[in-house]
């Protein structure tokens, strides 16, 4: 049976996210509780979490989380990393044994900084983030048996094959303090159960948890691949992550414009728009980024250094509920998954199709 990356596997999912706008930190227990409530939305073949603000003492370093299938590939990959980065710290990610979590790969993390000379020698590499993302893509493409599943600064992804609550227990998320958590429980229709195939999917600081099966997958994939990305997993989540990375980091689009790209307004609505300036802008977005429109059912939670964005497809074919209490914003596939950790929210709403919930951390601007 082919593993994820060699073929495309449709899947259904549960997603959940919590953010504290004032950057107050809290450990992983709440998010585990929330995603565990939606146990039936996943089938034990994938669960994962992204946590922002967890590595304050290494906040200037890229934190590479890597799965290895063997010691030999670990040695080869580390050799590559050493040639391209200065490694501040390398360690095995601490875990605790959980009965249901089996077939565990080697799980390591590295706090690294791109080597100045390595970056300069590559003429196609505009800055250190671009360099780092290229190196991550290179490892994932060329080093069979090694998989970088997290590469941001002061953030990290924890994922694997199992129910999300078990994965959270396994990675000891109760010991991490973050100001933002996202979680994912997966229901793939078939999979040999590969750890790299679980979600969230990340590149640099972007993390995406996603529920849906996008029908524009190959259009989006072939579009981002024109700009130097390589979709190694063949998952929707991967391609959505690359799209946002490309639009916001490479093309420098403001985040609200990037949202207009992936969840574009309908032509009829554009025609109805009264302001010629807005109309022209929306038309230009649809014309230039036609192939970046994400079509088909999805609800996603994007995490990045400035905050969190939750978004539905244009006609809301997947569930997404949001709630607010104090400094905190909650989003989840089901309202119950919010109420279990926040029993009397000030506001609960169901965002409309294509209308994003954008939550910025205090002091951040779009």
């Amino acid at each position: 049976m082919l593993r994820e990356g060699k073929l495309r596997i449709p899947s259904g999912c549960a997603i959940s996210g919590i953010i504290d706008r004032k950057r107050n930190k809290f450990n992983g227990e709440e998010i585990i509780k929330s995603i565990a409530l939606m146990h039936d939305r996943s089938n034990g073949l994938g669960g994962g979490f992204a946590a922002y603000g967890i590595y304050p003492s290494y906040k200037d370093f890229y934190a590479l989380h890597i799965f290895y299938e063997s010691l030999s590939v670990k040695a080869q990959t580390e050799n590559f990393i050493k040639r391209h980065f200065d490694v501040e710290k390398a360690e095995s990610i601490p875990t605790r044994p959980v009965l249901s979590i089996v077939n565990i790969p080697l799980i390591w993390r590295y706090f690294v900084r791109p080597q100045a000379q390595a970056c300069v020698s590559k003429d196609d590499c505009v800055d250190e983030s671009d360099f780092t993302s290229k190196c991550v893509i290179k490892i994932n493409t060329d080093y069979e048996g090694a998989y970088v599943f997290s590469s941001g600064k002061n953030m990290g992804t924890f994922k694997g094959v199992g129910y999300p609550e078990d994965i959270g227990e396994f990675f000891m998320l109760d010991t991490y303090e973050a100001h933002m958590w996202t979680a994912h429980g997966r229901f793939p229709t078939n999979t040999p159960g590969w750890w790299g195939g679980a979600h969230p999917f990340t590149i640099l600081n972007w993390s995406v948890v996603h529920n849906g099966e996008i029908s524009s997958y190959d259009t989006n994939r072939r579009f981002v691949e024109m700009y130097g990305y390589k979709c190694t997993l063949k998952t929707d989540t991967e391609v959505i992550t690359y799209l946002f990375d490309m639009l916001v980091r490479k093309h420098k689009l403001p985040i609200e414009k990037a949202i207009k790209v992936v969840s574009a307004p309908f032509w009829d609505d554009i025609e109805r728009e009264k302001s010629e300036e807005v109309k022209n802008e929306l038309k230009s977005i649809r014309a230039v980024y036609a192939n970046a429109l994400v079509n088909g059912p999805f609800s996603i939670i994007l995490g990045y250094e400035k905050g969190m964005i939750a978004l539905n497809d244009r006609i809301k074919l997947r569930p997404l509920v949001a709630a607010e209490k104090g400094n905190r914003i909650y989003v989840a596939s089901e309202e119950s998954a919010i109420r279990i950790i926040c029993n009397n929210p000030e506001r609960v709403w169901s965002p409309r199709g294509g209308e994003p919930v954008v939550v910025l951390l205090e002091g951040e601007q779009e």
Partner: protein
Amino acid sequence: MSLDFNTPDFEVIRNGNRCIQCKVCVHQCANAVHFYDEEYDVVCVDDSKCVNCHRCVTLCPTKALVIRKYPLEFRENFNWHGKAIKEIYKQSQTGGVLLSSMGNPEPFPIYWDKMLLNASQVTNPSIDPLREPMETKVVIGRKPERLKFDANGKLLTKMPLNIELKVPVMFSAMSYGSISRNAHESLARAAEELGIFYNTGEGGLSKDFYKYGKNTIVQVASGRFGVHKEYLNAGAAIEIKIGQGAKPGIGGHLPGKKVGEDVSATRMIPVGSDAISPAPHHDIYSIEDLRQLIFSLKEATGYKKPVFVKIAAVHNSAAIASGVVRAGADAIVVDGFRGGTGAAPTRVRNNVGIPIELALAAIDQRLREEGIRNYCSLIVAGSIRNSSDVVKAIALGADAVYIGSAAVIALGCHMCHSCSTGKCNWGIATQYPELVKRLNPDIMYKRLVNLISAWNNEIQELLGGMGINAIESLRGNRLMLRGVDLNEKELEVLGIKYAGE
């Protein structure tokens, strides 16, 4: 006179019990197949002149006529089949180059029919176009590399002029001269009503049609017939025709007998003179010359019109297309070897060029590998027969398609492959006034509108089934295609998987 070896191609059978001797067939056949014998007061038939255009069959009020293949057989021979023998009879009698009309009829593979589309089941919902919005609009033209916004989120990038199509289908180039004025008028009016475009072809544009300008693409071909500043500015876009799928590498020839007063004025050539388009543009002998022509045309139109470049699908199309994008074209048009024509040398039509499906897949892939696919639109032509062909073309990577043969079929063409005689009984490929008026634009433009509207509905159904509600999410979405009856190499070139994979 020596013996004529030619035998009829068709046999006209008249059912005596049904024939009422009304002579409608006699009045309608421009080839004089049916004639009235006054002596015996009876309608008679000369089979040898019949081209099987079905005009008489369609108009016969009692359905008394049937046309069949002439039942004369040669001794069975896979190699020296009847057609091969008859062509030799014809050439040895006349000493001429064999001429044919419409597209390549030979049994080469039709890849559209070897690709199947996907649909949503369980894991993702299909979308009902009757209940949900379903977008088929496309924007054709050059796109900037990226959009730039200022700190306040205001758009800084000025978009190059693009044209918008409500349906990703346009009417391809058919010149006034090769087709009749009424056919042209039908195409223009239909394009206007549908929010799409028709193409003037290389014969210029009659002033009477300038009013359809916003739905017109004006063509500039090697003969430069009827090309002047006002003409270039009359349309919404300009198309430089380098080649045509039916006859890559050769020029065109409109016989003098088709050049009447009006065609003469439109083409700017004397009445009755042959209009001969050279094989190449004599100011384009290389890619940099093409760039100069593109920018000359842009200068002449104040950079207000997108410039398309049309090439025939040939062996090296992918590299040529890349050059065309880099030369500054706003859209590339690629015409496959099944594309129709009013007249082409038979040997060229049947043996030159490659299938559009393969050319399209190769060009789209090549432009993506070079990172320039998004700069320019890709339009394909060359026997798009129905809405699923359109959908498959878009899934392979096209932005839109051109239809020529399908459009003239909607106007009544019965594919008799006799355009070059100029005696089209349906009033399409003819300039004889009494034949031209058989095509009533008031009726025929509506048939074109009906056709494209029907296709649009079907495209929406197919999109909805795939769980897609905007056609741009299908463009290049090759996972939506699966191949059957294809070998590994064909799958590789098409960039698709085999059914079941």
